[in-house]
């Protein structure tokens, strides 16, 4: 075959260029550790996500010192949870799946970007060093409301981040002869112990209790006060744990209307 000398040179240079590209990309993978979405997780039933222990309740979990796992569900046309909150200086592994059509989970302006295909779980581990708020969008057309599909990723400064959840249950109405009881439950989602103080107020009365909530567990306690001490009428109460507060009003009545036979469970004070 007759090939012009210049063309041979060009051919050689083209091959060098190609091999060079492959080498730099391989270096990015192996040397810098920029991994891709793979097939690490087994397939999943997209119609049965609500029975899956990871995706029934989409959430963030603390799994190691600075390690978190986020279980995210994409569906037309939203992401759950929203926002996703994680601390700065952490390593977060996202597990994302779809319950209906193909979506994407794309943190805008970053290379945290994956297709989300029903039946498959996309996993990627991301180092989040700086605090900040990022937009999360679906960049794969998923139907007529595609352009409304967005969420947020909040990278919170480490000292402001916790995974505490406060829940208080109390009766709405209490007979004057009974006790007003605030059933407090503090859930600590972090692996480390949470040392904190429960501060409560009912009417004029105040309470304070120092507690230690062990990692990945829930602490429950009940604060009681005699209804008679409060007197007939409406009394505001509140419970505060760190930055979390729950509050409502209890009414002390002379006698409960339905003879107090069954528990009048009213609403819990949860907002």
């Amino acid at each position, binding site marked *: 075959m007759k090939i012009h000398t210049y*063309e041979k040179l060009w051919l050689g240079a083209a*091959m060098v260029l*190609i091999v060079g*590209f492959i080498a730099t990309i391989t270096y990015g993978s192996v040397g810098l550790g920029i991994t891709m979405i793979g097939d690490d*997780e087994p397939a999943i039933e997209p119609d049965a996500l609500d029975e899956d222990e990871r995706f029934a309740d989409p959430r963030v979990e603390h799994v190691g010192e600075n390690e978190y796992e986020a279980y995210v569900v994409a569906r037309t046309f939203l992401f759950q949870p929203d926002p996703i909150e994680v601390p700065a200086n952490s390593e977060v592994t996202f597990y994302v799946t779809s319950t209906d059509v193909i979506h994407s989970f794309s943190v805008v302006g970053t290379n945290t970007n994956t297709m989300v295909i029903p*039946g498959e779980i996309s996993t990627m581990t991301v180092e989040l060093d700086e605090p900040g708020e990022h937009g999360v969008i679906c960049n794969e057309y998923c139907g007529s409301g595609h352009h409304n599909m967005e969420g947020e990723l909040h990278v919170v400064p480490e000292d402001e981040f916790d995974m505490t959840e406060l829940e208080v249950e109390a009766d709405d109405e209490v007979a004057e002869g009974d006790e007003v009881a605030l059933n407090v439950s503090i859930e600590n989602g972090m692996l480390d112990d949470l040392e904190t103080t429960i501060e409560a107020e009912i009417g004029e009365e105040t309470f304070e209790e120092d507690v230690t909530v062990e990692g990945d567990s829930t602490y429950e306690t009940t604060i009681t006060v005699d209804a008679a001490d409060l007197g007939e009428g409406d009394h505001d109460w509140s419970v505060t744990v760190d930055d979390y507060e729950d509050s409502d009003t209890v009414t002390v009545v002379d006698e409960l209307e339905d003879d107090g036979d069954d528990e009048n469970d009213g609403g819990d004070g949860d907002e």
Partner: protein
Amino acid sequence: MSNTFVDAYPRQSRLIRQAFLTSFVALGVGAFFGLLQALHRTDIWRPIESSTYYTVLTGHGVFLVVSFTIFFLVGVYQWAVTESLEREPVDMRFTWFWYGAMVFGTLLAAIAILAGFTDAIDISADVLFTFYAPLQGHPLFYIGLVIFVVGTWLAGADWFRTWWAWTKDNPDKRIPLPTFMVLTTMIMWYISSIGVAASIILFILPWSIGLIESLNPTLTRTLFWYFGHPVVYFWLLPAYLLWYILLPKLSGGRLFSDPLARVVFILFVLLSTPVGIHHQYLDPGIAEGFKYIAMTNTMFLLLPSLLTAFTVVASMEHGARQRGGTGYLGWLKALPWREPAFTGMALAGLVFAFGGFTGIVNAGMNINYLVHNSLWVPGHIHTQVGTAVALTFMAGSYWLIPQLTGNRLVGRGVALFQVLLWFVGIVFMTNSMYRGGLIGMPRRTAEPEYDGFEYEIAAGSVGELNVQLALGGVLLFVSALLFLSLMLLTLFNNDSEPIDERTIPAPLSGPEDSPAVLDNLKLWVAIAAVLVVLAYVVPLASIASRGGLFGPDVSPFPVSLETIVSVQFITTVAESLLANLGR
């Protein structure tokens, strides 16, 4: 007395004119949809609801990359085969049959898409050109696509048949280069379009009719991309044919190397298909190793395009020197820049070179994560298909249409302005798209600005990007209209002088400089098949075994409001439309 193609082959010219006409109608509709999108996305003018944007987007994609490009391809290839073999098809009725099938398929798909604009008919197919299941369009859409693809298969069979008839009369001759390009393109097309045909016929169509209840979205998606990358070369190779065959002549010279042109087309046969997974770098359920293999194969696909760059530029330089050009770069001035066919193709080649490098970014698997599905990607598509291909087709038409009609091109000066306008338009539009993609703006969305965050842009502003995109879109639309007007005027032009001589000068280095093995098509088919098997059997088996052949139990997500209703009625309408068109 002129010596045009239509004088020599009036029956062929009629068919090719018809194919080009269909192609240009699709171009007109698709370009108008493109204009709507450019203005809607940027929130400059929103005459439609944002939910209707996706109907427009589906039409833009299908009409331009399926109808416009492929009807043009069959026209050019019919011309190339006839001209280079100096021979007509064995049976012209068969030729009209495949053309009819392609038109019929297009009409069915078009009805399914366009019905999405009205609530009066319960049909729609807002599934975009990629129709990823479980998004579900009306069955008519899928049926139309299948008929269209079968039509192209028959077209290929027709060209092979003509060539076989020719070999009987010319047993020891090398395959003429244009026919070689046609046959190799079609081999690539047969190997690759099997994927989309399987995806539709085995899974998506029965599922859309309700014969099967579910499918495996990763599997149908992978089969789509098995076809989805080579289809890009199906659009591109007719442009390559024009660059190799016509551009050297327009430059005033001859093709630099026939052997290398053959090597280039063989490389496309071998490498076009085993790369499709590079569109799925971000897909879960496909192991990283398969993605790596696709990446390396893709990088080697640079080779035929780099070789083409050399040959085309060398041919142009040769032409320029024949015209009296001198100096290292001074010869550039001697090129026929006033000739719209030449200038259009040269600009298309320039844009293609730039766009090729953006394609390397896409192909770089880990860099791809930054730009995947961002506006960067349509930026790449519009430089490659929207300019390298489309502008070459338009420029080529300025030379071909006079050959096919015997009418002198109307408005050569306007034509020159038209190709320049396209170039300017694409520079504005894709500049905005590439930059928008880098800040994370998504593609394929009616409203790229969100409530929860603002794009962080280092230079310029989102407003400025929007203006550039809209301006580019408007310029491109005006340019397309100018082109179509000139084509129409030329069609009805009674003036027949002057028209360029139709003969193509022989290459500087002819086929005798290359080994005959290059023409052994069976060998290349066999090697291509082995490469496809190596690249795809294991990934496909893995995907099917993970999610099941018919998938996890995922419900269809109809984008069409109502399926199956009145298929009968629509078929009747389509048939009568076709009958009218055939007249």
